[in-house]
């Protein structure tokens, strides 16, 4: 199948304890315009109404072996701090996407960083394995 510079690819991150956190990394979309990461978040029972969710505007991706930061460009279905989305119950759930500057389309490990000195509420993920990056091309 012919690959083009404008192709987009679906990558399913390799199994990793970090990815099984809540929010869970479900899928990565790579192309030359952006890197999109799809997450699933199930409202936790520890908060009376499921708590709230948001993403810091200065979140970024780092490809391991490089110091370059790929910054957050856009989001879907999650507000950017200081805005928050408040769940209504502990049974609620949400799928959301973060759009970052495009990382190279090649096999690599990435870190997704919301806070460089994170607390338990921050979304930081390390050693997210992206393999077979050209395996699943998205149709136009």
């Amino acid at each position, binding site marked *: *199948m012919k690959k083009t510079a404008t192709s987009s690819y*679906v990558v*399913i991150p390799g199994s990793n304890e970090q990815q099984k956190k809540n929010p*869970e990394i*479900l*899928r990565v*979309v790579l192309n030359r315009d952006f890197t999109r990461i*799809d997450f*699933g978040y*199930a409202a936790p029972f520890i908060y009376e109404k499921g708590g709230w969710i948001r993403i810091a505007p200065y979140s970024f991706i780092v490809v391991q072996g490089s110091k370059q930061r790929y910054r957050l460009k856009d989001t879907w279905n999650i507000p950017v701090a200081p805005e928050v989305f408040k769940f209504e119950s502990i*049974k609620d*759930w949400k*799928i959301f*996407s973060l759009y970052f500057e495009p990382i190279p389309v090649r096999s690599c490990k990435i870190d997704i960083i919301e806070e460089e000195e994170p607390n338990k509420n921050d979304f930081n993920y390390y050693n997210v394995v992206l393999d077979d990056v050209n395996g*699943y*091309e*998205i*149709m136009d």
Partner: protein
Amino acid sequence: MNLSKSAVRRYRIIDGMLRNSRLKYPNMAEIINTINAKLDFEPSSETIQKDIANMRLPYPDGFDAPINYCFRNKGYEYTDANYSLSGIALRQEDLETICEAVDLIRCIGGSRISEQFNHAVEKLLAATIESSPLKKYSMPVLQTMIPPASMGMKHFDILYEACKERITLSMLYFSNDNRNFMHTFLNAFLVKEFNNRWYVIGYSEKHQAIKTFGLDRISEPLKIKRTYRETSPKIIESYLHDMYGVHPLAAAKKETISIYASAQMTQDFEAYPIHVSQVIKKESSGAAEITFQLIPTKELASYFLSKGSQLKITGPENFINSIQSLV
């Protein structure tokens, strides 16, 4: 030929009159009166004669309309009974039948289906509906329960296309039962409605099995360029015809399912059969043994359980055991 909008409207009316099998051979006065009634404008007989001449002109200047003046019947006619200005030979009775069917489909199809259907029907009838008196009838005389659009219907088009064009989807899903998320590559073959809920069914590569997914819990499906994994037509047939519901029980296969129903419940089954395979063997009391040739499903089990003491499942044994584990 440069056609004005009003000329086209007159052509359509003349075409409709010439195809009306109940009022054949319209004469000049009738054509003028009909146009006057529909367009609120009285054309001269010269205008109508010119219109007929234009309609007779060969394509592309005209419409190749085989219009003849019948001296015996003192009116105009199409010499080819199958001719239509639009290329679709719809007679008045065809129009009525289609409009009745459209009303029925709009009724049972709900808002999502009828939106696309309306578009197709409007195209089909565009050339003739304008001259049809049926347009006046806008108030429905048939109504079924149409629930508001549900979550997940925004993905209906891509799921339908994936089934029709055999395209693999990358799909995110949330399981309410397990409260977990997953990604799968889905080779979908059927979008199915059951009890006002919509599902997509296909071979899930994550599960290595055929699975059913509720549309309300599907997110962000993406079409993927890869070889679609075909499902055997026999399996698709079973989902189409041999199930009450959409979630077959584990290792379930088509078999005879039998129940014993009270007299009251039997009347319900008689009035509202749940499957074409339903067979009722009634006793003198009115109670009955009822059998079905079905693949056991969660929905069938739930339906039977919802009837309480009015109904007892008598076989097969594995279905009874499965139901007990569901309770």
